[in-house]
């Protein structure tokens, strides 16, 4: 039986002038699967996200989201995707509710349905009581949860998170990771989680390692640790990339 893919990135390349940011990089995220993309700062993770979200166009290769080619079926591909960018993209001057309503309108969710989904999202992401509060008045962890609630409003098949825990304290980070992983098992959302923080992946997670724009390794954490005879994924990463991981 073939695995249904939420995301299929096939041999994409991208360069900024003479600087090659991605070189024939490929990865797959199965539906309901959690895939971690590990890479040091500057490895090409954000460029890959910009391509997968249609902000940049790849110079080579292709991207399919739930079977829809991003280049030719752009709107269908985007409709199946929720994104939490590295930098906060919620509107600081607006309240939680106003931000979520705005996102629902952009996704074309009818008003009644949007009301229900927003209420559900607020409850699911522990934002009850904060609905009318401006984003600027929320903590970093709460803002990230608003972003996550917003990214999931239209119930996408694929959730992309680009270093979503940057700036969060340890407890908020681990809560956030656990919450996102529960989405894979409970809702069946495919998740691509880009990070340079090795403690965010566990032994059974499927991992891709990106370095200087190339996918240099792929497998579960257990498989990679065994293959490289390392103590943990940090050891694997250090051995492959040749620099210290956090």
């Amino acid at each position: 039986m073939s695995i249904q893919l939420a995301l299929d990135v096939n041999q994409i390349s991208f360069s900024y002038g003479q600087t090659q940011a991605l070189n024939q990089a490929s990865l797959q995220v199965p539906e309901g699967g959690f895939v971690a993309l590990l890479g040091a700062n500057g490895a090409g993770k954000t460029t890959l996200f910009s391509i997968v979200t249609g902000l940049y166009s790849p110079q080579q290769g292709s991207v399919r989201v739930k079977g829809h080619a991003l280049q030719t079926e752009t709107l269908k591909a985007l409709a199946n995707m929720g994104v939490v960018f590295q930098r906060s993209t919620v509107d600081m001057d607006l309240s939680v509710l106003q931000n979520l309503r705005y996102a629902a309108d952009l996704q074309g969710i009818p008003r009644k349905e949007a009301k229900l989904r927003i209420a559900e999202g607020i409850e699911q992401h522990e934002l009850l009581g904060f609905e009318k509060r401006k984003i600027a008045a929320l903590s970093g962890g709460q803002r990230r949860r608003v972003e996550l609630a917003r990214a999931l409003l239209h119930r996408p098949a694929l959730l992309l998170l680009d270093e979503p825990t940057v700036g969060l304290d340890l407890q908020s980070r681990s809560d956030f990771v656990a919450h996102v992983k529960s989405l894979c098992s409970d809702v069946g959302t495919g998740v691509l989680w880009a990070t340079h923080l090795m403690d965010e992946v566990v032994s059974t997670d499927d991992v891709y390692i990106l370095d200087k724009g190339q996918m240099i390794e792929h497998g579960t954490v257990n498989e990679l640790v065994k293959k490289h005879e390392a103590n943990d994924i940090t050891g694997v990463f250090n051995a492959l990339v040749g620099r210290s991981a956090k």
Partner: protein
Amino acid sequence: MTFSHAMLCLRGVVTREALRFVNQRGRFLSALVRPLVWLFIFAAGFRSVLGVSIIPPYETYVLYEEYIAPGLLGMILLFNGMQSSLSMVYDREMGSMRTLLVSPLPRWYLLLCKLLAGVSVAIVQAFVFMFIAWFWEVRPPLHGYFFLIPALLLAGLMLGALGLMLSSMIRQLENFAGVMNFVIFPMFFASSALYPLWRIRDSSEVLFWICTYNPFTYAVELIRFAIYGKFHVIAALVVSVCTLVFLAAAVIGYDPLRGFLSRKDGGGPPKK
């Protein structure tokens, strides 16, 4: 793209712009104070120096305040268009622009929504200005206010589209000061906003031709005629064509294949 999705998106973008506008009272005040200062101080001071003869659409001599009112409405639209463009550059730097651009709607439509949202806010500002100006003896006929709406909309779309086009070319917020110096002020002063073109021709033939080729002149004339219930065909045509050209350039600018995002200097990875 379905019709209902398109309408929901338009509602969302306009509501967001309106909420931001309401939250940023300083922006509203400064947008209003700027033309009022020109009306109260500049126009009062120059009333006796600058005589305006009878030129269309006027049927009699008018006060200088009345002459520059359409130019000041144009100023509101021009600054609002640039403000909108500034906020696009800011949104892009801060990241909130990404929310809009990854929505499952055609990019041209998303930009059009953004444009309409900005113009809606500018029209409200323009009418508040006209209300205050009424107490300053700027009293066009009542039906003029009705005709003013489409004229403001069209002129606002052109200037907003110009702002969008510029925002697609400006990579960083700090470069925006250049736009003020090289676009807004020359556009405003080299137009018929403050003085009739025949008067400019008396002083400088070159400046006259610059003013004649300035699209802002046509935006001002469109508004000037509309206030008196008249239609300036050439102005409407020029403004419409310029709107389409600027909007097309903005759409290309925001296209990941062809625009600034694909270029080396403009397409670097987002700042961290």
